[in-house]
């Protein structure tokens, strides 16, 4: 099931974010430097998406 039906715990989400930090950093690069705002935005979007079903249960 895709990401346990988007019902991951905080630890799991943080673990995934940590595991894929290189990918996140790669897509946070603007003009050769990591844009911290963009990085935060990506992490926030990931968190929201991966926990979007949590409240419904």
């Amino acid at each position, binding site marked *: 099931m895709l990401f346990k039906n988007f019902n991951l715990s905080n630890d799991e989400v943080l673990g995934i974010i940590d595991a894929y930090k290189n990918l996140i950093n790669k897509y946070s690069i603007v003009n050769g430097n990591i844009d911290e705002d963009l990085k935060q*935005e990506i992490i926030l979007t990931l968190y929201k998406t991966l926990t979007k079903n949590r409240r419904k249960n």
Partner: protein
Amino acid sequence: MSNKYNLSSKEKSYLKKIIINARNKYFDKNKFMENEIVTDWHTEDKEGNIMVNIKLDLSYEMKIDEYISFKNFIEIFSDRKLARIYKGLKPKEKYILFLYYYLGYKDKQISKELDIEPNNVRITRNRILKKINQKYLGGN
């Protein structure tokens, strides 16, 4: 870590899709950044030599250097933390703050200098101040 959280290939591609969408959304929200994104970072001449285009980014700091050495300008800050936050801003943001607070330019003059709408200058300036505020109080 990837051993602990083994994601299927479907999940991995989904993750990548989320990241790319978040990035695109961010650029849509911050349209003023479009000029700063390097799309043509190099050109190639007939002999195949690659010339790297150093974009606007550097030139903003060079513009500040025309008035005062950038290093000296940083030393004006009595608060080291604030100076560190200022140093971490994007070149364009640094230039806007420099023009507004150091040279005392009005928004209209800045808009002429950067070739953008005066309203956008105000919005950008407020956004920068908010960002500084958050970083300063956030303890970064």
